[in-house]
């Protein structure tokens, strides 16, 4: 645990907290650097939401220190404990928590009014924030009258309009359906890219895809402790726990069976479609996994029997450490894929980041379960 009275030089958020509950203890230490999104992944019950509540002041740690670049939120040694309303955190919950009795405009204006801003100032800022999140025409609606995706964007606007020092995102996409999720994900990505320099982001998710998309760094939280923290390359390269390996190691899609023929099913999954062996009757909503080793890469489609063909650019190439002659190749296909190929294949194909390739795998390589 760090000590000292000054906020940490060069870090936007400096965290070292311990909190014990009846059957669960959270103990972690991490920092968020300049203009960085730290994605915290973990299973439910791992302490992800508790972490955000500690930072926002809704929950009090037993001991430790929470500081941003400009102020100390909590320091058990120095007996500092700012209440939530003095912390300047922007908290966006999974269920958006928009005030049901206020219009969208008044929801976004809420924090500004609490801060005593002038009506003209409020009108301008709220309007700007709504337009920025592409919900500028919803101002007079009530939360019950807008869709889930719109509500989540309004919740983002409500947090961002206050120019927070820390943006706390608690599974902001989890409650949205797949198509909406893709839309809001795009909006969120744009928002995070244009955050002011003083704003650190903690993004909590259990979705590997979101972790990949948003995480400048990823911290894996297991049973209240950080088991690994690093860039996505680092995590992909050297997963340090079975959870992390499972979390990042396989391609996994949530999708829906849209048609079946000749023992095969077509599954719509996260914006793309794939073919798999018919898993038999049951719910159309399925999970599909593809091990990275099942995926072969080509410069151009060679034709042949593989049913699943995706084209996309290579976003990352990461060595797979256990037996050094394999690498993992992340692709910007839709849905995004990670392939695992040999060093030789990399050399033969001249694989490099940014190169557009064709990824293929057989329908028999897809595991479908419900």
């Amino acid at each position, binding site marked *: 645990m760090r000590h000292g009275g000054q906020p940490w030089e060069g870090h936007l958020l400096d965290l070292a907290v311990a909190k014990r509950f009846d059957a669960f203890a959270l103990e972690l230490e991490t920092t968020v650097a300049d203009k960085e999104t730290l994605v915290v992944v973990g299973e439910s019950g791992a302490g992800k939401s508790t972490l955000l509540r500690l930072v*926002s*002041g*809704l929950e009090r740690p037993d001991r430790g220190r929470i500081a941003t670049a400009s102020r100390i939120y909590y320091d058990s040694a120095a007996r500092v404990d700012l*209440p*939530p*309303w*003095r*912390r*300047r*955190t*922007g*908290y966006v*919950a999974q*269920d958006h*928590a928009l*005030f*049901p*009795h206020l219009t969208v405009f008044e929801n976004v204006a*809420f*924090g500004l*009014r*609490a*801060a005593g801003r002038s009506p003209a100032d409020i009108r301008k800022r709220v309007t700007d924030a709504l337009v920025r999140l592409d919900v500028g025409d919803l101002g007079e609606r009530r939360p019950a009258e807008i869709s889930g995706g719109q509500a989540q964007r309004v919740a983002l606007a*409500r*947090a961002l309009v*206050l120019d927070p020092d820390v943006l*706390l995102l608690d599974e902001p996409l989890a409650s949205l359906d797949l198509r909406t999720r893709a839309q809001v994900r795009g909006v969120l990505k744009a928002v995070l890219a244009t955050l002011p320099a003083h704003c650190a982001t903690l993004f909590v998710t259990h979705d590997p895809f979101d972790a990949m998309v948003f995480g400048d760094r990823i911290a894996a939280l297991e049973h209240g402790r950080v088991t690994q923290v690093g860039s996505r390359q680092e995590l992909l390269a050297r997963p340090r726990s079975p959870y992390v390996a499972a979390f990042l190691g396989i391609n996994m899609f949530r999708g829906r069976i849209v048609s079946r023929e000749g023992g095969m099913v077509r599954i719509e999954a996260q914006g793309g479609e794939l073919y798999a062996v018919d898993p038999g009757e049951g719910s159309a909503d399925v999970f599909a996994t593809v091990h990275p080793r099942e995926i072969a890469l080509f410069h151009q489609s060679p034709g042949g029997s593989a049913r699943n063909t995706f084209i996309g650019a290579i976003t990352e190439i990461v060595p797979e450490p256990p037996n050094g002659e394999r690498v993992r190749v992340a692709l910007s296909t839709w849905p995004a894929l990670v392939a695992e190929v040999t060093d030789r294949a990399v050399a033969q194909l001249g694989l490099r980041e940014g190169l557009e390739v064709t990824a293929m795998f057989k329908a028999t390589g897809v595991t479908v379960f419900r």
Partner: protein
Amino acid sequence: MKPLIVRVALVAAVATLLCILALPMISLLVRLSPGELLHQLSQPVVLTALGLSLETSVATTVVVILLGLPVAYLLATKDFKGKRVLRALVEIPIVLPPTVAGVGLLLAFGRAGLAGGALKALGIELPFTTLAVVVAQVFVATPFFISAATAGIASVERRYTDAAATLGATPGYGFFRVLLPLALPSVLAGAAMSWARALGEFGATITFAGNLPGRTQTMPLAVYTALQNDLAAAVALSLLLVILSFSILLGLRFAPWGAAVGGAPARPRGR
């Protein structure tokens, strides 16, 4: 299809209860001809009692809200030592006979009461004043407001107050802009219930405040007085009270927020 015996029992229970509840109302209603009713209601003593009742019960409701809201907030949102005791204490007036409440009030705030001297030093003399009527009504009406308001505030989901706090709202600001608006249906229902209770208050009032026309003789007291020598006047006054009380209850049920008042909407009939 329910067995016949169950249906008969249901119908019998409803019919019996309706008789006990509705027959007295109907009897009041049919007793006087409209002309006689109007004549009785225009008597000065009736108008005076009506005016005093409205005046005191509205004052009571305001006092109950002002004093009850902070207590309801505490009970609904905080954990503290003695919370259960406070809850029970606040609810005592519901089960206490109002005359007992009146005796207690007299012993507490009467001339020779525990706080009587202190009040006198402040130049306040309570017993047999209109103010005493309000005090008696507050005593009996407060619990109705506090239980409804407490339940209402407690039912506001934590995520909304949490959101308010992270958006920079102090607890006070959050209370007035988030907690109270979201709990408003229950708070209004509680206020209406305590208003109705104050309007009908008799025992504590007559014991503590006396029965002085124009000063402490509210409608229920006027009914009681009229009953001694003028049945028609008593019936007219009673009918007026019934109509007032029934209007309040009916208003509660039909208000846009009526669903929040005690009775949940009937369960949809399944197969």
